[in-house]
């Protein structure tokens, strides 16, 4: 690949300061550093650095989402592919435009947002809505705060929330009956017009109508729901990989799931006829996906270990409360947004206590 590197190095001056295409410097820089590791060197102590960089960091999250993306393809057909492409394309353009305007580098964080976001959408959502949502998520959720690292909210969740509030009908219908058999729906392109494949409600939606579906399909994934959220097994498989690489914190995941389990368990204990078993809630809807891939976003969650427990508990408890006591069918994304808002505060409090302990040290 040295020939490619040579070409890039030859082109570099045009995109550098005072070059012909200086304006597109961020784009070139991103492409160059995406293909080849950076040539930058340390200038002072420490003279060596850890090989983990943000590109690796983010690509591991993507690797971890491969199982549930594949499950999405299997259960809901090839349209998933178009949704992902629209998300990456529109969101990517927004990211690049902002980088060019602000003369900053393009951040890898978008690679993750661009995949998380389509996975939490209903599979037949019109593509223009997909684009609109990702635009909102990237611009309002992230860029206006200063880009990845400075955002308060998880951009994917922000985008989805925007759609859920603005287009409630489209966001709560158009579910697909999951594929089955050897090929699933891998050969089909199921859109909102394919009437035979359209399902009325997700398990959580049915629960609102008093219908209690079986637990096992919730973990296998052969239920209708958002693209990447249905298969508990695929999510856990990818999620465990993420926990093992310590890119995501097991504390956040454990805290979300345990608190949701306990909260749902209490409700079920108080009134078993009105409230379903706790395990059902863990498998239903986007709780597993949210716990493993969205709540663990380091930027919008607390950095401290203690903070992560509280943050996770907020998400878990609020999810169950919204699911059982509000008009909304699913509560994970609102709960995560709430957790996001609380996380700087939680960190601050933990730091205060931590520093108080160091008061007399020298």
């Amino acid at each position: 690949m040295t020939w490619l590197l040579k070409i890039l190095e030859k082109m570099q001056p045009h995109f550098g300061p005072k070059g012909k295409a200086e304006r597109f410097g961020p784009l070139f820089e991103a492409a160059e550093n995406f293909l080849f590791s950076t040539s930058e060197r340390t200038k002072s102590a420490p003279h060596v650095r850890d090989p983990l960089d943000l590109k690796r960091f983010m690509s591991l999250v993507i690797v971890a989402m491969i199982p549930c993306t594949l499950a999405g393809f299997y259960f809901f057909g090839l349209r998933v592919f178009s949704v992902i492409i629209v998300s990456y394309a529109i969101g990517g353009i927004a990211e690049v435009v902002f980088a060019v305007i602000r003369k900053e580098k393009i951040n890898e964080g978008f690679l993750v947002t661009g995949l998380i976001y389509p996975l939490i959408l209903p599979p037949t959502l019109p593509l223009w809505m997909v684009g609109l949502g990702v635009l909102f998520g990237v611009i309002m959720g992230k860029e206006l705060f200063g880009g990845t690292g400075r955002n308060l909210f998880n951009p994917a969740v922000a985008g989805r929330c925007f759609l859920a509030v603005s287009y409630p009908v489209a966001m709560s219908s158009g579910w697909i009956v999951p594929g089955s058999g050897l090929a699933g729906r891998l050969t089909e392109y199921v859109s909102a017009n394919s009437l035979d494949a359209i399902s009325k409600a997700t398990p959580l939606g049915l629960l609102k109508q008093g219908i209690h579906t079986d637990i096992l399909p919730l973990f296998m994934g052969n239920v209708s729901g958002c693209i990447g959220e249905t298969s508990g097994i695929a999510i856990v498989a990818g999620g465990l990989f993420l926990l093992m690489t310590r890119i995501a914190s097991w504390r956040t995941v454990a805290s979300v799931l345990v608190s949701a389990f306990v909260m749902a368990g209490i409700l079920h204990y108080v009134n078993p006829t009105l409230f379903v078993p706790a395990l059902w809630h863990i498998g239903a809807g986007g709780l597993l996906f949210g716990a493993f891939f969205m709540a663990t976003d380091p930027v919008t969650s607390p950095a401290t270990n203690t903070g992560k427990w509280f943050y996770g508990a907020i998400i878990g408890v609020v999810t169950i409360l919204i699911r059982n006591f509000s008009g909304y069918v699913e509560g994970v994304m609102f709960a995560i947004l709430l957790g996001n808002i609380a996380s700087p505060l939680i960190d601050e409090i933990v730091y205060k206590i931590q520093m108080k302990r160091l008061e007399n040290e020298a």
Partner: protein
Amino acid sequence: MKRLKGGFDIRIVGRPSAIVQTPPEPSTLFIPLRTRRFHFSEIVVQDNTDVTQGTILACDPKQFNVPLLASRGGTIHLDRTLGQIVIDKVKPVSAAGSNQQTSSWPHAPSNLDSSGQVRFKLLKMGAWQYFKDAATGLLPDPMAIPSALIVSTITIEPFSVRGDVLLKEKLASFTRGLEHLQPLLEYQPIFLVFPKITTELALKIKETIRGFAWIKLVEIPVTYPFDDFRLLARKLGLISKSNKDNVWTLRTEGVLAIDSVLTNSQIVAEKVVAIGGPAVKKPAHFKVPVGYPLAELLHMAECETGSRYLNGGVFSGAIISELQKGIDCECGGITVLSEQVNRSFLKFVTPGFDRRSFAPAFASALRPAFSEKVDTALCGEGRACVNCGFCSKVCPAEIVPSAIHKLVYQSNMDELEFYRPDLCVDCGLCSYVCPSKINLYSEIAAVKMKLREELTPEKAGH
């Protein structure tokens, strides 16, 4: 002792073997006047005069006139522009130290008591320079009484001279040195810091030390930077915010120097210097006089040219300038890193069996511990902090580098003090682990400096 937290162990290829080589006697010595802690600005010898081994060449007036001694006899050439004293026509030493001149050493003032006499001798014969104050890292006052003394047998940072290398043949000398230390103290304890490992040598030393009642053995895990004296003093409860005074520290080298001065009345003319790192073909320990030509040593270890030469380790070492020609009197090790950074294609998606990181994010996590070939690559592009929390997990001082970084980013100087940047022990691990490649270490160093400046005029006013 309170539990040590954080820290990180990195293994790098090019670890010097435990055998100490003695290179041929040099014909010329280049003795630098500036070292990490000292600036020997007051030169006391004349140009073109002959000196003998042990003659005081210069001293540091700001630090109790700590002397710089001639490691060999020869003819002096002052080279102020390059900040060094050159000793030409070096007289070789036949038997170790036999031609050391002792008569010209200044006599101790007669008003000193026996302990004072010992201290005076240590200072004038160049053994005092091995002492460090735990809180400040500076040279302690020779005439003060310490509240405790920490002696460490380990240096963890790759690559410094390892304690076990120095101790192997000098165990008797080491224990004698420890005995010599006792009169300097008035019932204050000596904490002997020891690695938590069971080698034959370790057991042997522990056996020997057992008889010394005033020595308390402290065992610590061999993880960088747990050998840091300030950290140890803090964890041992010896220093606190209200009491930072007078905890003295000493490494193996210093104890051996004290024994040499007090038992044999001989200065320590030679230093053991480790040369290691990925860009060294034959990493080794060398026993050389201070001022030994750097170029010859690097040649002997077969270092790659065009590399980065560090005085010290990979984390806290300083780049050796091209002007420095010889080994300085504080040098413990030289680490050589390649400046050749390869740009590999789509490196971030490769499994990475040969790259180890703080988070087990590479396939190397599946391998047993191995030595890594590192270079000076930044290993990524600078990005905004993503709040991953690695820096606070790795920090041995238990502060939160990312919080300090955010306040610096907001130029919020008022709140900075609350986050205790002053506790930082300069290990550099936060910068090392940061996936956004933020140089937290230098940011915190700048903050510390600023806070200290703000504090000084106030103090002067009182």
